Each structure stands twice: as C-alpha cells, then as structure tokens.
C-alpha cells in the first residue's frame, strides 16, 4: 500500500474541530430543552384531547415525522425567504432541529402519559390532591420516567442528524470535517477522527441524559 497516513494533518486543525464540536453540542442542547417542552405541551393536548390543539398537534406530528430532516431544513432555509420570511442560517438549523425533535417528543411522551394506570389517578383524587398536583406528580413525572430511555435515544438521533446542517453552512462538526478535508485532502484521517468524535459524543450524551434525567425525575421519591 502506497498511502502514507498523516493524522498530524488533522491534529493541526484541532481548533476548527473543537469549534465545530461546540456548535454541535450547542445545537443539541437547545433542541433537547425546547423539544422536550414542545413534547410535554403537545403530549398533554393530545392525551387529554384538548380541542382544537390536539388536532393541531396531530397535524404537526404527522408532518414532521413523515418528511426527511434535510427537506425540512432546506424548506426553512431556501423556501421561506421566497415568501418574504428571512431566517438566518444558524437560526434555520436550530429551528429545524427543535421542530423535528419536538414532533417525536410529543408522541414519545404521549405514550408515557397514556400508560398511566387509571387507578393511580383515582387514588390521588381520593387523597384530595389538587388537579395540578395530580398532573405533576402522578401523571407527568412517572410518564417521563417511563419514556426517558426512548427520549434519550431520540435526542442522540437528532444530535447525529445535525450533521446535515452543514449543507446550509452551519459551522458544526461535519462542516468542520468537510472544510478540513477539502483543504488538506486527508479524507480518511479527517473522517476517521470525526467519526470518533461523534461516537464519543453520542456515548457521553446517552450516559449523561440517562443518569442525570433519571436522578432528576426520581428526586424526592422513596
């Protein structure tokens, strides 16, 4: 084999990779928090059939769970300006990720809420808990605890999916990789290192969310 591997060529670009990694983490964090909020609100509307919001959320969920992320991204970035709605590249990427994760979160959390045993709510009512107390402690928290592993998986999927945001010039990890290899022509080394970074980030993110989320949701319980 005549090819000489040169990982130093990639090591020299470490600041570029670090900046990309930071941007990926930032996009994921915002998407995770905002998506979770959308998910909770949407799931409550869907599960309790609050009209007209349950229909609106149903349409939203079906629209964004049944179209590719890349198409959603291009529509926001290239499509909307035609209608006179300007979205900066960075906001377009973030918005697309929030909307996408939100749609999945609605369905995930709804399944958790609907799995609440009726007896538990009746027991809470018998104990004269207020409605908001029942919602918070008897319905929502156990529901989130039930679906937390599924939610974590979805966040990791969206984090990995953020790679396509490079297509609209968002300067995240894949963008950094593509830029570096288009300059040093070390495609193997660059993508090898980048894949490793994604792998590490995904494992770390999963562990953090599973442990942190679980601890938070279980707090104050026997």
């Amino acid at each position, binding site marked *: 084999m*005549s090819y000489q591997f040169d990982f130093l060529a990639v090591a020299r670009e470490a600041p570029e990779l670090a900046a990309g990694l930071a941007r990926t983490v930032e996009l994921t964090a915002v998407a995770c928090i905002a998506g979770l909020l959308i998910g909770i609100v949407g799931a409550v509307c869907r599960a309790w059939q609050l009209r007209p919001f349950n229909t609106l959320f149903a349409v939203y969920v079906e629209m964004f769970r049944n179209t590719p992320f890349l198409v959603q991204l291009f529509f926001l970035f290239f499509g909307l300006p035609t209608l006179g709605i300007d979205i900066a590249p960075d906001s377009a990427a973030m918005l697309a990720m929030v909307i996408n994760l939100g749609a999945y979160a609605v369905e995930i959390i709804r399944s958790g809420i609907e799995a609440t045993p009726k007896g538990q709510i009746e027991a809470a009512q018998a104990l004269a808990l207020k409605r908001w107390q029942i919602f918070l402690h008897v319905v929502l928290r156990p529901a989130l605890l039930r679906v937390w592993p599924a939610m974590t998986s979805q966040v990791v999927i969206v984090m990995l999916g953020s790679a396509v945001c490079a*297509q609209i010039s968002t300067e995240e990890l894949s963008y950094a990789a593509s830029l570096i290899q288009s300059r040093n022509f070390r495609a193997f080394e660059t993508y090898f290192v980048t894949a490793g970074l994604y792998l590490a980030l995904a494992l770390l993110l999963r562990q953090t969310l599973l442990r942190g989320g679980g601890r938070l949701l279980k707090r104050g319980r026997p």
Partner: protein
Amino acid sequence: MHRRTFTLGLLAASLLGSLWALPAKAERLASIKQAGIIKIAIPADFPPFGSTGPDMKPQGYDIDTAELIGRELKVKVELVPVSSANRIAYLTTGKADLLISSLGKNPEREKVINFSVAYAPFFNGVFGTKDLTLDKPEGLAGKTVGVTRGSIEDLELSKVIPASANLKRFEDNNATIAAYLAGQVQVVATGNVVAATINAQSKRPRRLEQKFLIKNSPCYVGVNKDDPQLLEQVNQIINKAKKDGELNRISLKWLKTPLASALL
C-alpha cells in the same frame, strides 16, 4: 451497563480500524485499457462546465473533454458526478481515474495530485446585485458572502477576506447559488461563465452582476501521483486537441468564445 457501552464502543472503533487494510493498486493505465472503461469525475451542478441536460444526462465543457479523452484512449467513459468539496478524495481513493471537474491548480493541491496541461480558461470573481457598489475584497467587510466549500474561490477568498465579513461555505454549487437567489447571502464568489449561465437560465429577479475578479485560474485534469503514464497520455491528448481545433470547438459550444490564445 457501563462495561457494555465501553465494549460496544471498542467494537465500533475496531470496525472502523479494519478499514486500514486497503487493496494494493495495479498500474492504472494498463488496467483501464484492459477493462475498456475509464471512470472520470465531473461536476453535476456547475454550468457550463457540467450540469444536467434536458435529457437528464450530464452535459458541458468538462463532459465533452472527458468524452474526448475516452475516445482517444479508445475506452468507454463512465462519468462520476462529484461536488467541489469531495472531488479530490474521489480521485485519491480510486473512485475515479481522472478528475475533469473545472479544477484549478494551487501548491496545496499539487502536493496531493498531479495536474495535466490546462484544458479550459476560468476566471473567478465576486458577484452581487446591480445596486451594490463593490470593487475590491476590502469592500466585503460586514457582508455575507456565499462560496462553495473547497473550490478555488473559497481558498483564494479565505486569504484576502476582511475578518468582519461573514463567509458562508456551502457543500455544493447548487446550494451556493440557491442561497444567493433566495437572498440568504448578499454576494457569491464563483466563475464568471458560471454566473453568465445562471443568469441566462434563472428567471429570478436577483441577477449575478460581476463586482470584481479574484483570480485567473485555468482548469486542469487531475491525475493521481502514482499514475505518470496516464498523465503523459492525457497531456498528449489535450495538446493534440488544442492543435487540431477539437478543444476550440468545445469552447465555442459551451463558452461561446474561441479558446483563449494563452491556453494554446
């Protein structure tokens, strides 16, 4: 749980690692002749050099040049569409035997691949709307500039652009042009003939008016470092095509001008 995650990570890493074992390479020119087929990387979104025609087949200056080389080598041509950012990787990893993708020459690229003699003229510049006054790189301060990642415009502009300019790099030429037409970037850097072709094709109100030229950067055929015989053949074919007017015919067809005398 913890140990399992670690084991899985290790497994994934070793899978990636197994890609190290790449097959050895034979003398390429001989194997091309033997197979009767040559794989040539061409642009698919860079008119007039390479774009998709009304019959959904690739067409353009680079495609005609590729066919010319195939004809002279007496082999069939298999066109491989590539983007600006990944085209050199296509060549160095053997996914293409030749790179005819309006490729400009610079010292960094010359370290990685060999270049033939020039086969086409190329001037790149900065383009924007008519009402914008802009005549030098310093004028880009504070502006949003679109460019295709890894193109010669990207490399040249990155050196001279003011720090306050917002340089947006897109994956392929389609995205760069679409971002400009949609108003997501104020100006774009691309080839002058590319801008002219887009203006002729697009019905959008945003035209690409030339503001200033960055560099005269003719196009060369890219050949792998370890294929000196193939490079020799390609140079002979291009030089012959310059003499017998074949390349001039391609230039008249796609650039609407005779081949510049500087290239002859």
